[in-house]
């Protein structure tokens, strides 16, 4: 049985159990003082909002240059994909693979995966709950790795300072990319994983009112 059916909620922070009234959105945990929700409020709407914003920002993140290489009076823009291709050309395929996975595969997977999970929760079927929860856990773990490119730029900007011969500076694509990473991490945090299991355990004839109130919007 679910905790929500017993009128019990887990603290978001310390996972202690607490009796919560359905209407009470500001309940606090007696153990740690953190927020306690039967289900995170407006979880689906907020996740969608964050996801859509990240999808929009994902375009400039990939199209705009993330850094400029200034050399002998000339400036050459470099996008994320160009960085990967450069690495391949220098015969550094393993490193190219790492960068490709961290900055292209992971963000795309996160966007598509979260969208799939949220849709399947809303439509109450396509993917099984096991698949969804496995995917969600995976997305939570890999999310931060897309920051890789931002850190690479940081190190390059600081270490390539050779006067007029060569300098590197960050560019606007990096801001968009950074925002995508942060927003998708927030989207994963806002999504309430418990929703994945809700429609499985709800008796079909009497859809649980508590969860409908707490999270359907």
């Amino acid at each position, binding site marked *: 049985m679910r905790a929500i059916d017993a009128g019990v909620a887990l603290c978001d922070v310390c996972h202690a159990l607490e009796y919560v009234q359905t209407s009470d959105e500001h309940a606090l945990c007696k153990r*740690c003082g953190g927020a306690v929700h039967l289900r995170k409020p407006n979880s689906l709407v907020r996740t969608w909002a964050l996801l859509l914003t990240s999808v929009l920002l994902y375009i400039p993140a990939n199209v705009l240059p993330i850094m400029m290489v200034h050399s002998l009076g000339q400036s050459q823009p470099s996008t994320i994909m160009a960085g990967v291709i450069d690495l391949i050309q220098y015969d550094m395929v393993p490193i190219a693979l790492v960068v490709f996975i961290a900055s292209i595969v992971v963000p795309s997977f996160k966007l598509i995966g979260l969208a799939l999970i949220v849709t399947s929760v809303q439509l109450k079927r396509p993917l099984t709950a096991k698949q969804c929860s*496995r995917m969600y856990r995976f997305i939570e773990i890999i999310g931060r790795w897309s*920051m890789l490119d931002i*850190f690479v730029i*940081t190190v390059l900007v600081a270490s390539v300072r050779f006067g007029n011969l060569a300098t590197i500076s960050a560019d606007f694509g990096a801001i968009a990319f950074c925002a995508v990473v942060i927003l998708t991490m927030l989207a994963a945090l806002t999504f309430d994983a418990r929703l994945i299991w809700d429609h499985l355990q709800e008796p079909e004839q009497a859809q649980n009112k508590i969860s409908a109130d707490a999270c359907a919007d």
Partner: protein
Amino acid sequence: MQKLLDTHCIAPAHTAAVPGLAEPLTHLMGCHACDLLMERPEPGVHAQVLCPCCGASLYRYQPQMLRRSLALVLTALLLFVPACFLPIMEVRAFGYQTLDTVWSGVVHLYAAGGALQSIAIVVFLSSMLIPLLKLLSQFLVLLSILFNCARSYALVLYRLYQHVREWGMLEVYLIGILVSLVKLLDIAEPKIGAGLICFAALLFVQVWLDATMEPQQVWCALTEDASDAGY
């Protein structure tokens, strides 16, 4: 690693008997990932408890948690300053020589001005401030458990830790350093500095610490009598 037996779950048939407001919840526990309500296994019996429904890890018992964590957190704090301020690498090219530290990376990004400063702030937060904040709060929480004092502050600090833990990204930074080392190979001769070794050591200790300091044990220790917690 012992999996929680299915019999520990409350079977739906018993549900009517279980709830009932004001009944104490101490013998129960819930899964944060799928909301399953189950009986709390005896503390210390299982090395690890997994949710029988969704497989999420609920609890992992760490023997000697306090002492081991204190040792690790002290090591990490000692390593923090050299990791951030000693040069991670030294790059020579065209007669120029640059030294790069974690801190100088932030400074040079910030110096670019304009909107790009936001990236510098994100890098500063995720590679320096939040990791330091995490370590300090862990350290103070452990001290509070050890000396049995200032519990209410420790609760606030540990809550803060739980909120920021995901945003410290030392391990990503380390891979970032390695990727840029490789990228620099074709235009310059990068040399690894002492900072990089400290940074890698800091990362190693911090990951170990995060695995050792089991949150459920810490919460229990912070709210119950030190003698009772048994950790």
